[in-house]
């Protein structure tokens, strides 16, 4: 009972929305699809739902082709990033709608709908129409409607992106709980936020320019990103990727001093590479080190991302907590050489830092 996407390819106006996408999606697991806007995430969901056609490739459910199965017979539930509900129905009627379509008896449908609304904490608002609900509440109704159906495939297309910051955080937490009860459903969840993908996903699918760049558990994706594209998209802020060379005992990176070659970089031939410097592996201070100029400071609430100009190279540093530094300050940079990633010049991963992390 799995969903298989077989070399899905779709071109729209000479642009590949999906390019040879092959995936196996298992029931009972949460698959998060991580990628920037335009990476093909929404196209993938629409093809799975039967809402868009592909130029080639097929979707198989339990080995059976879905090519000629129209959307209304696919048993797919979807939650959109816009809060989509039927404006003329109350919250309860909205949740009951798909159940009644699936010929669930009225009493049973009502019971299940109420249960789903309770799960998302909206029991007290079940008589309201979507127009009288806040954005967050509307999205809860949409989620309840998708859950109550117990559809075979549950697709969520950046469901939290249009919510307020705190609401997003809160609902993300709740989704983890809600997903734990999906049983035999195949869940696919798209997002542009790495933390969301890693936190919710049993399996993370990273997409880049219409292709699947990497599939794996959150730990695998984060700790051994297959390409520089994955490394950038899975880190917040994106990983610094800079041309460098391996030279005997050292790693030379443009702008930085020669760094000692850490043990995980042994065994690679000397020569040019792309060096991945995770933002948290950089630290800034007043001590010795290479001097850099701060160009911009971002504060995420609990961390500070400091963008620096290091002799013409743009780097971003991630520091825990809130630091009182400002644009134009000169700081000294140090790098933890044991945390460097090594990519070949075409961007594929050569070496990742040893984990020993978990």
């Amino acid at each position, binding site marked *: 009972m799995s969903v298989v996407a077989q070399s899905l390819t779709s071109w729209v106006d000479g642009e590949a929305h999906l390019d040879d996408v092959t995936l196996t999606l298992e029931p009972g697991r949460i698959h998060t699809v991580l990628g920037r806007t335009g990476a093909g995430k929404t196209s993938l969901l629409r093809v799975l*739902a039967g*809402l868009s056609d592909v130029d080639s490739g097929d979707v198989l459910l339990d080995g059976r082709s879905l090519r000629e199965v*129209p*959307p*209304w*017979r*696919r048993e*797919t*539930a*979807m939650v*959109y990033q*816009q809060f*989509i509900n*039927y*404006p*003329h129905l109350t919250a309860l009627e909205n949740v009951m*709608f*798909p159940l009644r*379509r*699936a010929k669930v008896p009225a009493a049973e449908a009502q019971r299940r709908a109420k249960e789903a609304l309770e799960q998302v904490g909206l029991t007290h608002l079940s008589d309201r129409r979507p127009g009288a609900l806040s954005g967050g509440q509307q999205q809860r109704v949409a989620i309840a*409607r998708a859950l109550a*159906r117990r559809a075979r495939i549950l697709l969520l297309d950046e469901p939290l992106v249009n919510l307020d910051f705190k609401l997003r955080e809160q609902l993300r937490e709740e989704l983890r709980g809600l997903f734990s009860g999906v049983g035999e459903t195949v869940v696919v969840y798209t997002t542009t936020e790495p933390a969301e993908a890693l936190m919710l996903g049993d399996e993370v699918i990273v997409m880049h320019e219409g292709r699947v760049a990497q599939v794996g558990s959150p730990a695998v994706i984060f700790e051994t990103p297959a390409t520089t594209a994955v490394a950038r998209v899975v880190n917040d802020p994106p990983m610094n990727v800079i041309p460098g060379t391996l030279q005997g005992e050292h790693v030379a990176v443009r702008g930085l001093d020669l760094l000692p070659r850490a043990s995980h970089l042994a065994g690679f031939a000397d020569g040019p590479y792309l060096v991945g410097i995770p933002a948290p592996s950089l630290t800034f201070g007043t001590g010795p080190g290479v001097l850099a100029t701060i160009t911009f400071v971002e504060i995420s609430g609990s961390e500070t991302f400091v963008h620096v100009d290091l002799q013409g190279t743009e780097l971003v540093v991630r520091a825990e907590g809130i630091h009182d530094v400002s644009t134009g300050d000169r700081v000294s940079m140090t790098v933890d050489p044991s945390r460097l990633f090594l990519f070949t010049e075409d961007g594929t991963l050569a070496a990742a830092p040893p984990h020993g992390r978990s």
Partner: protein
Amino acid sequence: MSRWPRRAQYLLLIVWAVFTAMPFLWAITTSFKDVNAVQGHVTYVPWLEFEPTLEAWRQIFGGAGGVNLVGPFVNSLIITVCASAIAIVLGALAAYGLSRFRYRIGPAKNKDIVFFFVSQRIMPPVVLVIPFFFLLQMPGLLDTRLGLIIVTVALLLPIAVWVMVDFFDNIPREIDEMAMLEGCTPMQAFLRAIVPNSAPGLTVAAMFCAVFGWNDFFFAFRLTFTQVQTLPQAVVALNSSIPPWWTLSAAALFGIIPLLVLAVLVERYLSKGNLAGAVR
């Protein structure tokens, strides 16, 4: 700041309000006049300048020496309602399809098909009426309500499509997509998810259809004769000979009263912003 834009605004409003109201005021006063009040010199104010009488109103409802306008009124009503209903059903279906799916008929794409519908308004009635005459003559539909209904549908369909395409374009397509994912066929999605949320658009389309349907004169004039007479036809017939102005005025007012109700409705929908989609 100078205050003249504000003054110009009020001046315009007053002048235009008077201009708009004039024919109505004239028709209303005249409908209570008799031959003495019309001949000789022009009179305006009842009681002061002439003695009002209900004679004209009695005549148009079949009073002695008059014409009965009740029959034409019923004809107009039946034809307008039926033709509008058919045009809206066909128009809404086509508009929904054009708003949601991609069509290709020969070289024509969606925009061209919409244009084809709307462009039918360019056909002058006088060009159509002779062929229609023969078209209706063959199956014996001349001088029948059914015949006029069919012709009126052709007249109204472009209007219905024009209003509804824009309206549907403004309903998020995710709503019907979701309905489909939840087990509705496209037709069910249309009927259960879209139509219930289209009351404003359908109402606007219905209002336009009603206005253009009710006000048609030319087709009725040439395609019906004795059996079926519509209200505009009956009113104009009064005008053709020596005008009994009071009867003509009463008949004219009677013929436009149903549409005054529509003006109020249109304004209400306008204020709610429901007409916006139609003009973009």
